[in-house]
Structure formats: structure tokens, C-alpha cells
């Protein structure tokens, strides 16, 4: 039940938010360095250089923090959807319906999603 809901939520989140970010990224790349800087400044801001003087800068800084969480959330949504999607492929061929097996993999799939997300960011940030 939970894995099924998670599969739908992460899939629809990737479709609505993830593809929008992908299009902004591709559009910014195709538009030139200034547009790419704008994309990077909003979606992946340097949190150490945020400005907090005045109403507008505070609002912009809060948005940038939320957008960074959105980016990390999208990576989590992708790896979780990937993990539960692979589970669906196994179920599609008629395997894994025994109660114990089914319960084990339904518990494992969101955990695998989190592990893959953590591994991705560890490789991205530290190597």
C-alpha cells in the first residue's frame, strides 16, 4: 500500500516538477551563459552567500533554500521511483507474490531508494 502510494507520488512529482526543472536547465543551456547563471543561482544557490538584508533578499534566500531541497527531493523521488518501478517489473512477470517475499521487497524498495540517493550525493559532493 505504502510503496504503491509512494510510487505514484514520486512519479507524478517527477513528471510535474522534475521535467519542469529539466526544461529550464536545457533552455538555460541553449540560451547562453547568463541564463545558465540565473538557473544555477536559483536552483543550486551557494548557501554561504545568501543575502539577508531587506524583505526581498530574505524572501529570495528562503526560496533558494526551498529550491535546493526540491533538487535533493527530485533525486530522492527518482531513485525511489526507480526502485519501486523495478519491483513492479518483477511483479509484472508474475514473480514475488508469496507473502513473505512480497512484504520483504515492499519494505526494501523505499530503503534502496534512500541508499541510492545518499550514494549519488556522496559521489557528487565528495569525489
Amino acid at each position, binding site marked *: 500500500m505504502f510503496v504503491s502510494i509512494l510510487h505514484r507520488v514520486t*512519479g507524478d512529482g517527477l513528471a510535474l516538477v522534475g*521535467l519542469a526543472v529539466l*526544461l529550464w536547465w536545457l533552455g538555460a543551456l*541553449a540560451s547562453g551563459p547568463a541564463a545558465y547563471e540565473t538557473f544555477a543561482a536559483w536552483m543550486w544557490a551557494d548557501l554561504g552567500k545568501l543575502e539577508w538584508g531587506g524583505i526581498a533578499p530574505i524572501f529570495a534566500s528562503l526560496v533558494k533554500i526551498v529550491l535546493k531541497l526540491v533538487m535533493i527531493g527530485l533525486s530522492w523521488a527518482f531513485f525511489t521511483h526507480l526502485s519501486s518501478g523495478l519491483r513492479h517489473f518483477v511483479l509484472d512477470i508474475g514473480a514475488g507474490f508469496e507473502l513473505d517475499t512480497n512484504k520483504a521487497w515492499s519494505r526494501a524498495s523505499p530503503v534502496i531508494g534512500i541508499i541510492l540517493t545518499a550514494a549519488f550525493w556522496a559521489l557528487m559532493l565528495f569525489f
Partner: protein
Amino acid sequence: MGNGTSLGRVRGLGSAHSGVHHWLLQRFTAIGNLLLVGWFAISLLLLPSLDYVAVTGWLARPVPATAMALLVISTFWHARLGLQVLVEDYVHEAGNKFAAITALNLAAFGGAAFGLFCVVRLALGGAA
């Protein structure tokens, strides 16, 4: 699988008279996404930097440009199919459903066209 008559199972049609095609395409595009977004994630890890010059130089090359174009097609197709199921599950009034599916089709085709155009522009050197 005890559902449906023999003839219905041969035709692959249930009471809705369609759906197998949708179901299969959802899985074909899922495999496409697995390969292409997997390639994209690994590429982001392997790129020496994610600054403008590094990324555009990479995406302008033939194989990455082709893979990114296919990624746009596969992800938008998969998303369109998935969101269609979302609409069908939660929007029951016929007029609203028609409007939602129409908007979804326009957004999916428009978004994919924009993504493909951006890849082509990067690959063929039109970008600044």
C-alpha cells in the same frame, strides 16, 4: 490469471476495450528512462565540472546529444502516460476529464518539443 474470456484475453481487451497498449508503452518507456536517466545521473557524476562551458561542451557532442534527445522523448512520454492514469483515477466528470487530458497532451508535446529544440540548438552550435 482467471480474468476475462478466452477471446478477450487473446485480444488483450477488458471491459474498457483498450489499455494493453498503454500498459505496454508505460513499461517500454520505463526501460528507456532506466537506461537514459541512469546514463544522465552517471554523466553528471563523471563531468569534471557543471559550469556552462563544461556542460555545453559535453552536450554538444553527438552521443550525449542523441541520448539527451531520447531522454526527453522517453521521460515526457512516460510522464504523459502516468499523469493520464492520475487524471483517470481522480477526475470523474467527463467534461473536466476531457479538459485535463487535453491540457496534459498539450503540455507533454509542447514540453518535449522545447526540450528537443534546446538539444538541437546546443548540438548544432546555434547557442551563444
